[in-house]
């Protein structure tokens, strides 16, 4: 993408209105004490809040066309919701269902889209949350450990059965439907009812307790074919790419919240009879965080805009955003803990929720380091040979 066709990197008024609605809901329904209580409970996702966000606010249907009951909006609007769920460390499967699973279904025009758009159905893409989006070799990167097996006697014609395991799936525990990429001849994408026989989900103790993961085991689970071959591979690749970009936007929100929380704290906290925010070394470090946020924001907006316009520069934009926002979020969260001093190191203070969301998000869909390696390939900066023996 050349400078001549640089997209608008600002937020539109409609996007700001959407942001305000989401922020108000999350501030009201998911304040820090509620989240801290939730992660100690047996169900760390707030299903009721998710239904409100998905259905009433319409966040679940943003990317879905109007013909399926969605808003027909773009990744620009979806990005704004991701920023807000990041800011709030919201315990809802927005990224998992409204981005990952939804994008995997978009091209198929499958009937599930209507349920997703209304918020009646929640779905998850059964792929490891750590998985990198495929960059240059989509086919090779999409191998799945799940295999389809011939349909059982009496199964309808579009049904097969799936067996295999997928570790560390995000959003699976709350999902009604699991979208399962499976290898066979050829690669396919299938829908599996999460309560069907042969489906078992084992909760994982995740580093980010607000985003529960689960290990999925399928043992002859009945499945409905969504897409086969190249369309299936494309659907999964598109979902991972969009997921990485929207997660980057989520991380921008995390970084912004960390900065705001820290700035507010250092203005209040007094040591040596002065606000600690009057100490220049801390001021300069917070200025550095703010600078990192301004940079990350531009990268996040560019990725959202490229995705919205299906721009050929999208792989570069997503790798840039995932690396920049991941590092900004971790930087901001680590400074948030540090500059809160001892209190930021306690369980009772929400700083750790932001830190764990930041660090987990930076690793999900590939670390900043791996995204820079992809970037190097995309922009023609090949690696050096091993020189340790010279």
């Amino acid at each position, binding site marked *: 993408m050349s400078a001549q066709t640089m997209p*608008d990197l600002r937020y539109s008024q409609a996007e700001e209105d959407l942001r305000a609605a989401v922020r108000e809901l999350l501030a009201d329904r998911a304040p820090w004490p509620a989240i801290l209580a939730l992660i100690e409970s047996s169900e760390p996702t707030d299903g009721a809040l998710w239904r409100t966000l998905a259905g009433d606010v319409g966040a679940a249907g943003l990317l879905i066309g109007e013909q399926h009951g969605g808003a027909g909006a773009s990744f620009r609007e979806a990005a704004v919701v991701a920023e807000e769920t990041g800011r709030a460390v919201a315990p809802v499967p927005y990224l998992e269902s409204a981005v990952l699973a939804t994008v995997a279904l978009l091209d198929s025009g499958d009937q599930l889209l209507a349920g997703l758009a209304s918020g009646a159905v929640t779905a998850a893409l059964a792929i490891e949350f750590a998985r990198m989006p495929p960059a240059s070799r989509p086919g090779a990167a999409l191998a799945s450990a799940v295999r389809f097996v011939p349909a059982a006697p009496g199964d309808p014609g579009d049904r097969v059965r799936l067996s295999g395991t997928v570790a560390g799936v995000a959003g699976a525990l709350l999902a009604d439907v699991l979208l399962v990429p499976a290898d066979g001849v050829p690669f396919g994408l299938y829908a599996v009812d999460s309560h069907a026989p042969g489906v078992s989900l084992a909760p994982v103790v995740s580093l980010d307790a607000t985003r529960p993961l689960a290990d999925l085991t399928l043992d002859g689970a009945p499945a409905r074919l969504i897409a086969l071959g190249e369309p299936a591979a494309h659907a999964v690749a598109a979902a991972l790419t969009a997921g990485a970009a929207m997660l980057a936007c989520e991380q921008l929100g995390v970084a912004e919240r960390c900065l705001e929380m820290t700035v507010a704290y250092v203005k209040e906290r007094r040591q040596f009879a002065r606000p600690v925010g009057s100490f220049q070394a801390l001021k300069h470090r917070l*200025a550095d965080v703010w600078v990192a946020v301004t*940079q990350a924001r531009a990268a996040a907006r*560019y990725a959202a805009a490229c995705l919205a316009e299906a721009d050929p520069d999208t792989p570069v934009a997503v790798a840039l955003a995932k690396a920049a926002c991941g590092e900004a979020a971790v930087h901001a969260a680590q400074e948030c803990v540090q500059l809160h001093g001892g209190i930021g190191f306690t369980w009772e203070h929400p700083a750790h929720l932001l830190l764990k969301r930041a660090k987990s998000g930076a690793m999900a869909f590939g670390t900043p380091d791996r995204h820079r390696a992809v970037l190097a390939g995309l922009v023609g900066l090949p690696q050096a040979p091993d020189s340790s023996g010279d």
Partner: protein
Amino acid sequence: MLEAAGPADAGELRQRVRDFLADHDPAAMDRLDFLHARFDAGLAWVHYPPGLGGLGLSRELQSAVDAEFAAAGGPTNHPERIGIGLGMAAPTILAFGTPEQQSRWLRPLWTGEEVWCQLFSEPGAGSDLAGLATRAVHEPGPGGGHWRATGQKVWTSLAHRAQWGLLLARTDPDVPKHAGLTYFAADMTQQAVEVRPLRQLTGEAEFNEVFLSDAVIPDRDRIGEVGGGWRVAQGTLMNERIAIGGGALPREGGMIGLAAAMWREHPELRTPGLHDRLIRLWADAEVARLASERLRQQLAAGQPGPEGSASKVVFARINQDLAALELELSGADGLRYDDWTLRRPGEVSFYGRRPGYRYLRARGNSIEGGTSEILHNVIAERVLGLPAESRADTSVPWKDLPR
């Protein structure tokens, strides 16, 4: 970006340039005559007001105008030689000058007939610009009388070629320091102004020292109120920071392009550690470019944000790191320099000469135009609202400050 102001405007504007070119053949006209005519037609800088070289349009439309003129082979005003005039003096004159000053100065400034320089920093007033000691004393007379200025300024680019200097001087030492400053345009060609080259660690004398010894400044060349110089200077500095950190560049424009090219062309110089630094800096540079672009879009839409300070800070860091990388990537060649001879270059370039020069020159990027330390203070205090440093120096008369 053209869409932002509506395609009708851009099309109409292009047509206006073509009409102008139909009447003014650049191949057949004297260069200055052509530039004067272009200015008078409002096609110099279309975002300036009518009568002052512009048409009161969006700043973003200028690139279409420049492209039309370039395509037609029109002479340019050599913007690379008059950067301070275009980037700092002109916006200051537009914002704070009288209509008479605007009419007098902007046309020859834009055509390059009159070169401008900036007389702000002093040996004792760098980061603490408001502490400056150059005195200007008023002498009554007809037309508001005149001022006599005495003092020493440093870090003055182009002073030896300048007709005018943007001078910040102390006109009242009996009030706190920020309140006692006044802003002038000083005639650099008078005897009382002496310009000496100031050599840098690159070997070049890109800058100058300027000694004012009872230099005369008519009161009509004062810009802004007496005692109001600090506010005017802040406007100039904001424009300087945007000029240094925020230039629009294509992908791989600037220092990253040089480093990436060397990497691609010299596989034998590559090492794994340098690759990691290079790709980090490539990503940083591209993200910084996007952030500058976003800032420009906000400015064009009348939503100025504080991100200009971030751009300058980021630019300096990336430029320095890239220059160091490029030098290390040069292998044995990195131990060589091109020339230490004292020279006075005609224009400023961060990207000229060889890697050794670029490495050394880049060290200045975090000093010139506001140090990175001062910009961090600006961000912390003005953007984040953190408490200001305790300042003993802002409330007492300047003359009573310890020095």
